[in-house]
């Protein structure tokens, strides 16, 4: 049976979840932008703009301790972080380009090493996705095989309706359980009229063809044209729902400290710096080449997926105007 929820009841749903001790994360105004952040009240939710950062930090925080240590009289005490202690979380208002990234990232985080910091958070999170009725000229989810109404990665999916409120579709057991937990907030909906989906101008690209070209063109001089301008600023990687590189450092003193994992980026100059001083990616266009290769070839080689959901954040925020859609669109014509 098709379900729907009013805007008021959505707010009530979030307040009820908060009252029961769940962590509720959704787009919230933070200074000059909206960010996916923990909400204190349901009415903090803002759904009229794409959050500036992606939702990946729900599963993959910007910075987290992975263990702590302290030198005591009894010797060096090491305390692990317990992934079982991560809180039950509901991520609400995840755009299709953000929700779809999590199932793509699952592959690398459960590959040769099962990363419980990520996986435990994934298990404990219910994702409420939200369809997009607006798009701008940087959006290109349609180019990479996704859509403004795409349900990949959502447990429950909301589509804005004519006259207000949202049509809801449960896609997984988690989604079903959420509706079952608060049946009074959801209503049966016949003849649901949803608002038209956004229509990004970006045409669908042939990802196989793009990968085919990348397979053969590692040394092509086109990389200098594309990326000599890249400043290596890292904004693209940090705002991207799919980028997941990280650095691990020990911080503190010999007496007391923590081992921390924080976001890293292949665009950084020192990313591939060897202890010997040799750097195989010694100039910026080689580093940008890696970005394209990883997203549109290597991740496909390893896991059969494209490591990009077309959210457009890298395009909007690149200080030197590098347009990843233009890059892959050009490659797809070769």
């Amino acid at each position, binding site marked *: 049976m098709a379900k729907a929820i009013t805007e008021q009841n959505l707010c009530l749903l979030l307040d009820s979840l908060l009252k029961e001790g769940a962590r509720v994360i959704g787009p919230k105004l933070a200074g000059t932008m909206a960010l996916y952040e923990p909400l204190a009240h349901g009415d903090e939710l803002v759904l009229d703009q794409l959050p500036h950062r992606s939702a990946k930090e729900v599963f993959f925080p910007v910075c987290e301790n992975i263990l702590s240590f302290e030198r005591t009289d009894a010797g060096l005490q090491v305390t692990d972080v317990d992934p079982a202690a991560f809180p039950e979380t509901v991520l609400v208002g995840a755009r299709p380009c953000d929700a779809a990234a999590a199932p793509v990232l699952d592959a690398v985080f459960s590959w040769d090493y099962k990363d419980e910091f990520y996986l435990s958070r994934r298990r404990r999170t219910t994702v409420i996705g939200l369809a997009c009725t607006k798009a701008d000229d940087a959006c290109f989810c349609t180019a990479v095989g996704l859509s403004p109404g795409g349900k990949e990665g959502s447990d429950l999916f909301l589509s804005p309706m004519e006259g207000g409120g949202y049509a809801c579709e449960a896609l997984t057991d988690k989604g079903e359980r959420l509706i079952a937990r608060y049946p009074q907030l959801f209503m049966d909906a016949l003849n649901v009229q949803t608002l038209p989906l956004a229509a990004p101008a970006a045409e669908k690209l042939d990802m196989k063809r793009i990968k085919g070209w990348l397979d053969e063109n590692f040394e092509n001089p086109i990389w200098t044209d594309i990326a000599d301008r890249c400043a*290596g600023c890292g904004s693209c990687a940090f705002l991207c729902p799919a980028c997941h590189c990280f650095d691990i450092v020990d911080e503190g003193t010999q007496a007391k400290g923590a081992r921390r994992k924080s976001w890293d980026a292949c665009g950084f100059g020192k990313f591939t710096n060897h202890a010997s001083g040799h750097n195989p990616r010694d100039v910026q266009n080689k580093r940008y080449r890696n970005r394209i290769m990883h997203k549109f070839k290597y991740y496909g080689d390893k896991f059969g997926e494209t490591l990009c959901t077309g959210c457009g954040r890298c395009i909007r925020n690149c200080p030197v105007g590098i*347009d990843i859609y233009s890059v892959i669109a050009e490659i797809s014509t070769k």
Partner: protein
Amino acid sequence: MNNAAQKTDTTPIIDTTCYAAATEAIRAEAAKLLTEQKVAVVIGYKAGRRAGTTLPAIITDPAKAAELIFSPACVNNLALYLTKAKKEVRGKGRIAIVAKGCDMRALAGLLGESQIKREDIFIMGVNCAGVKGSGALQVEPLTTGNIARKCRECAVHTPEGADLVAGTIGNLPELTPVEAQELAELEAMTSAERWAFWKAHFSRCVRCMACRQVCPFCYCEQCLCDRNCPQAVETTPRPAGNMAWHIVRAMHLAGRCAGCAECERACPMDIPLNLLNRKMAGELKELYGFEAGLEPVQKGPLAEYKEDDDQSFIK
């Protein structure tokens, strides 16, 4: 707090034909310089895919000169591409570079610090009415409402010291300064209030280092903050490391920063970095009577010691 649009007048500041004139002049000169092999590469701007956007263009083929443009979207400080970090660009040979007045302050600084030789560059200065701020819509003209904050207080609309000056701008309207106002507000705060102000902003820092990467003066081949033997600044995005990073950077830029505000524009978390740099610039002016300008200066105040230097801040 970024280069966000001021909600005022929507009258275009200058006629769009002025941009056409600058564009023509740049294209003609670039084609000539490359054809005559007076330069090996021209660094300018070209149109992006998305309407109204531009991006840096690094061209070696005279035929590509026809792609160069100048518009109010030409925000980038192209002096970035002349630094040590961009070996792959510098290695090409003599360079022609399109430069607005604020960019020329960066060029003057790099010349003064012996990072480039004057004979190795051909400066195509542009008479610039201003560029659009971060809040501006892509396809609207430059107005008093959407002009970048730094441009409201510009004193270098007509760059001196260039080899060529492209375009004309005529009379420009008086604009109410915004950065000076924010600086005054900052200076009116107590130490505790100021600490809280910056701490709040830096709590949003994710240590992407975009501010460093787009800055023409952050050209150290090994940034102090990347060293780990020994480590001076923690690299994780946490309060101590974030505060240290921004203080170190502000100190290293004091007296050098050209006020191009690229750091603020590039910051993905909208931290008002130019405000911090303007504050430091103000301190240097007050203590040493020094201001970064269009004249290359060999030794800035923090690179030189004089017997009669003000020492009042040493407590």
